[in-house]
């Protein structure tokens, strides 16, 4: 518990733990938390037993749905998500890769329309492990090592 004193516990809301440190801020961005009224705490470079360094995002007064949680699957597939009510863990959610990934990923094909004109990206998941995506527009398949976030 001592390790987590840097960000306080929340009464109601969602705690996303075990985020790879380097994508913590990206996770917060993807979740689009601009309209959340409660307190949002973001901590990164925290020591962790499971991973080298981890990040945590705590979102007060907002219970994420499974669909919302799934948005972070590309960058933080092993994150743990706890829904908190009255300071207790009410539910745990797994991060599941959706069948379609929208907006988050950049197409690796420089000649794809999404890299030439303002267009939201969309990818179909061809394979979950190892991750393989197919661009809705140029139809190119992308392997995990080619995946770049927007």
């Amino acid at each position: 518990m001592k390790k987590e004193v840097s960000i306080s516990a929340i009464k109601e809301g969602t705690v996303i733990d075990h985020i790879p440190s380097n994508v913590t801020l990206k996770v917060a961005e993807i979740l689009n938390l601009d309209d959340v009224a409660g307190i949002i705490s973001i901590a990164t470079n925290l020591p962790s037993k499971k991973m080298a360094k981890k990040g945590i995002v705590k979102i007060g007064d907002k219970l994420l749905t499974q669909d919302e949680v799934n948005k972070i699957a590309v960058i933080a597939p092993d994150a743990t998500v706890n829904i908190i009510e009255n300071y207790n863990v009410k539910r745990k959610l797994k991060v599941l890769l959706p069948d379609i990934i929208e907006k988050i990923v950049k197409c690796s094909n420089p000649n794809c329309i999404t890299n030439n004109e303002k267009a939201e990206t969309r990818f179909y998941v061809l394979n979950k492990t190892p991750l393989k995506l197919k661009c809705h527009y140029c139809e190119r398949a992308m392997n995990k090592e080619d995946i770049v976030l927007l």
Partner: protein
Amino acid sequence: MAFKNRDVISINDFSKEDLLHILKAAKSMEKSRPNLLKGKILATLFFEPSTRTRLSFIYAMESLGGKVLGFDDTKQSSLQKGESLWDTAKIVEKYSDIMVIRHPVEGSARLMAESSSKPVINAGDGANQHPTQTLLDLYTIQKVKGTLNNLNIGMVGDLKYGRTVHSLTNALSHFNPTFYFIAPEALQMPQNYLEELRQKNIKFVKEENLMKVSNKLDILYVTRIQKERFPDPVEYEKYKGYYKLDESLLKNIKNDLKIMHPLPRVDEINKKLDSTKHAVYFEQAANGIPVRKALLALALGKIK
């Protein structure tokens, strides 16, 4: 699936039943239907030059009684002023009932189709898709062989960058073919296509020497080694002219082999083969007419 208002963007959007339905509609378009699309307007947006495809669409539309407007030179268009394709589609839909687009950027036709409330036909988006070419290839095979099923299909030339062979491979996969991919290793069919074939349990053979497998083939699909698709001009120099088909091929083929080519050819097929019963590439190009007529009439809801 209903065809009215349906876009034609990628051959992969069509099921086996869809493909067969389009081919049947194309056959019905072999007869003259001079008033079928009377009062309809086709916009042809060619951001990249293409003589044959464009003329074929214009001919198809006009011989069905429709009218055509458009451009084939971006110098004339607002693209020079930086207008987005999204906006272009929004404008053009006000002037036309259906549009055909060719654009060098991959996925451009899909984006325009999403912007436009009118049906959009992709006439080639860079190295990605050219579905009307694939449909006329299927139509030709069906016409000259009487069936699409269980054929031995040879593909020779640039199988790595050639979009026609990629799309045709996907489309023929519905019909239990055996593929013979004839190319030097550097120009062979990309791994992801081979992987898809394995998953679908479709037999294929990779071979560099055409003469070793030529006697097995029902169809030989020849492609040009396209300079514009090569990222490295040195690579291109190495492989241009790698396959040149001439009369020596005739010694080792089935009697009813048919030779196809999406055209234009450079020197892959010697002119001496043109007059043989095996050559069907000019007929193939002409088959673009009934196929494109059918797609226009289906999308405009004038035939079912």
